[in-house]
């Protein structure tokens, strides 16, 4: 049940042969080697597998790989530029928003989408919480994560 799909992964155009039974998560980890994409619950509750499809966050565990045909995928591996962390990544470091780390790639991608969507708008901490409601951190480091998102939003307009 193979299909050939063409998509952009972290800015690079790729042609992949995928099985229609595969989730995007499986293809990203096993074929593209992008192991930042974690499988947690596998049923769309924990957000550890969050990636951006055309800049929109989705759970890649509940996304058929064939649906990625013609689309642009972003994972945490593609967020830094020339060794420099993205603003959201840097904010996570500065806020101490990483504990065990397994939820972090998913959180960074959900936060990145949130920050890009809300740039230039006034956003409060209570606004950020529902924006990250699709991600669980079992170390319960939520407060630092929300601080990181706030920092990313507050730091002007430079990329």
């Amino acid at each position, binding site marked *: 049940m193979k299909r050939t799909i063409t998509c952009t992964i972290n800015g690079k155009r790729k042609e992949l042969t995928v099985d229609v*039974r*595969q989730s995007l998560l499986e293809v990203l980890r096993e074929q593209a080697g992008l192991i930042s994409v974690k499988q947690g619950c596998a049923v769309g509750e924990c957000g550890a597998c969050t990636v951006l499809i055309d800049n929109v966050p989705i759970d890649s565990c509940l996304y058929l790989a064939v649906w990625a045909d013609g689309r642009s995928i972003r994972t945490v591996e593609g967020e830094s530029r020339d060794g420099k962390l993205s603003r959201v990544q840097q904010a996570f470091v500065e806020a101490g928003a990483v504990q065990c780390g397994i939820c972090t790639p998913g959180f960074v991608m959900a936060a990145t989408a949130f920050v890009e969507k809300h740039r230039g708008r006034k956003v409060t901490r209570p606004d950020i919480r529902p924006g*990250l409601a699709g991600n669980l951190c079992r170390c319960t480091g939520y407060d630092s994560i929300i601080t990181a998102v706030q920092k990313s939003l507050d730091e002007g307009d430079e990329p």
Partner: protein
Amino acid sequence: MFNIESYRKAGSVAEAVRLLRENPLARLIAGGTDVLVKLRKNQEGFHHLVDIHDIAELKCITRTADGDLVIGAGSCFTAVAESPLIRRYVPVLAQAVRTIGGPQVRNMATIGGNLCNGVPSADSAPPLLALNAVLTIEGGAGPRQMPLEDFFQGPGRVALEQHEVLTAISVARDNYAGYYGHYDKYAMRAAMDIATIGCAAVCRLEDGRLQDLRLAFATAAPVPIRCKATEDRVRGRRISPELLDDIARAVTKDLQPRTSWRATKEFRLQIIATLAHRGVRQAILEAGGSIA
């Protein structure tokens, strides 16, 4: 890998109907947030799929020349919640779908899928019931229309034949113009949770009277349901605190909540009365009414 035995991608609604007719075991997959969870659990009945995920004609949200709203069944909840038309004309629906899952789920899950699953807890159902929504269903012989109220037949059972596709959900102008609404959901968590009780109240006021009330609940009966007896009882009555108390008492007789691991029947009855009171009150305030 998901245990998918056959997979056909449909490029149009007509093709989806044809592919469903070709394989009587096949069923639709749209957003995937329910079907793929069921496949993950290897649940029977989901191994043959017709994919309508990418059909553009199912994703439009429009307003006709007559002012009727037409929501493509394949619209994801984010698209519904952020649609300027929905926010302006039926904000109660935007309010309800924002309570579903988290952002990632709302970016994928479709409003049509929510209705076709037929679960009692569907958050999109109470506001759409309260707006007298009508469904458009395509089965190959031209579209048929059906009131949403007649669609729900039992837990997980809806009036959709195996070869049919729900294409659109419509709200006629007369059913929303002059009406104001409120949706309230009680759940253990503020996000990523299923409604213990969901309540949509939609009303129209005139001269301090409740000219019309439409009240609908999720998880309060085997199907999402309207409270017709309560609505008839209070229609035309003067707005007062006593009226709200009366609604909260009457509404439990319209419903049959059950005990589950989430909540007991007794607890749900308590929440039903509270949400009815609060929901009608909020809807009246939205409509510019005052409660002496």
